[in-house]
């Protein structure tokens, strides 16, 4: 109990004093996971809409693959991204391994199926008649997609939160492709693992608390946006 208390005190101290290393680590976590989430939105929302609205052979297979991908284990992603980015791997010439870019790539692969899957669900829970009505009112194809997206904005924001939550809290892939390099690729989760293995449990607890606060702040912001229309 005393240890947990020490950790909480340490967390407050680190936040209050604005410890530069912790700030750098926290900001890097937000940048990497934020970028990965943004990229996964750019890819996942159109892909999800296409899978939800289009009819083509093999569609069920694609949806099943996306749904499986929603539970993609981060360490598996980390391993395969590492193998591709190794010097001897097919993308080794890029020199991306152990850089933030590699971490964004890995986190994108983790987040994209989550966003895609939840977009499919969001689109499919819309009343199918809405689509017919919009078309009958003369909406163009792009207007139709835009209006459907607006109609599904609440579950789409939930998709953003799930995607971001999935990657900010992930440690396996970040550790493997980032290497947990101080000042370069160390994020809150990998720093927590390191401090735990060093036996600095109070610092590890403090880092966890900061991670939770960070995840909470981002989700609170998104929830505020999401619930905006709910309370007139």
């Amino acid at each position, binding site marked *: 109990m005393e240890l947990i208390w020490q950790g909480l005190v340490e967390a407050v101290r680190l936040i209050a004093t604005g410890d530069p290393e912790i700030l750098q680590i926290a900001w*890097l976590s937000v940048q990497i996971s934020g*970028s990965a989430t943004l990229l996964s939105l750019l890819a996942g929302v159109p892909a999800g809409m296409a899978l939800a609205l289009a009819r083509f052979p093999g569609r069920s297979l694609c949806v099943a693959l996306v749904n499986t991908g929603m539970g993609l284990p981060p360490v598996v992603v980390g391993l395969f991204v590492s193998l591709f980015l*190794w010097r001897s791997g097919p993308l080794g010439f890029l020199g991306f391994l152990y850089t933030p870019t590699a971490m964004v790539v890995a986190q994108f692969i983790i987040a994209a199926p989550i966003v895609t899957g939840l977009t499919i669900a969001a689109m499919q829970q819309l009343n199918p008649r809405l689509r017919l009505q919009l078309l009958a009112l003369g909406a163009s194809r792009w207007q139709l997609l835009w209006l459907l997206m607006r109609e599904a904005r609440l579950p789409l924001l939930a998709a953003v939160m799930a995607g971001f939550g999935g990657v900010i809290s992930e440690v396996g892939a970040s550790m493997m492709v980032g290497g947990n*390099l101080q000042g370069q690729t160390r994020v809150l989760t990998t720093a927590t693992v390191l401090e735990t*293995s060093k*036996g600095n449990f109070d610092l590890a607890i403090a880092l966890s608390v900061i991670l939770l606060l960070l995840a909470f702040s981002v989700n609170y912001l998104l929830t505020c*946006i999401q619930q905006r*229309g709910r309370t007139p």
Partner: protein
Amino acid sequence: MRWMRGEKQWWGLGVAVAAGLVLGQLAIPAPVPAAQAVILSTTTSTQDSGLLDVLVPLFQKRTGYTVKAISVGTGQALALAARGEADVCLVHAPDAEKKYVSEGLLLNRRLVMHNDFLIVGPAGDPARIKGLASAADALRRLAEAKITFVSRGDNSGTHQLEKKLWKEAELDPSGAWYLQAGQGMGATLVIAWEKQAYSLTDRGTFLAFKKRVQLVPLVEKDRILLNIYSVLEPDPTKFPRINVAGGKAFADFMVSKEAQDIIRTFGTEKFGEPLFFPDAGKREEAL
């Protein structure tokens, strides 16, 4: 229509946050040019003990290289270097190292430092191994009494030594009493402590976890328990992409007088005794 206006503001905020993140991404330090980055694959104990935090910045200052230290188990650290995925490795598994050298994958093995392993267990010592001169005898007693032993089980340097001890004891440990943690040394010690079990640990990690883990040293100073760290470089003729000069510079630095002097006193302040003993230029048999 009021809410419409509000919604637009929120969209604006969202776009601003998105733009900020993308711009921020650009501000992340650009990747270091390959010629200046040295990838060091090493064992967790060099990082967890804090030794790298002292030596790496000094090396960077002296040479202008940037070190990317990847801390993994010694098995993986050696395998990475032997595939040319690292430019130099700092590891502690002499038998495995010599095997890679004899296969021609790694070159120029040089001793850097040593410390020692010890068998730790609960203060009550239910297996009565305290003070035994031979570590293999101690393990044999644990196996015979089927008293819980927590192994790293991760092919790390520590685990490789443990396997060597079992081999010497002519035993193949298995059963409910033999737990394989598959984790780092610190986590393994915590498991051993929670289960009031025995374990094999390096002295550095044991000292670092003294506050959390109140196991006591029971068998130590057997010659086989020496924990010897060496630097090795991958064969540059086999791997076109490695940073040969950078890797060699780091290996040279580790055996330089400056680094060896730091190693000699490192840890004294925090633990009351040094964690490592410098060995540059010595022969393994002379330790």
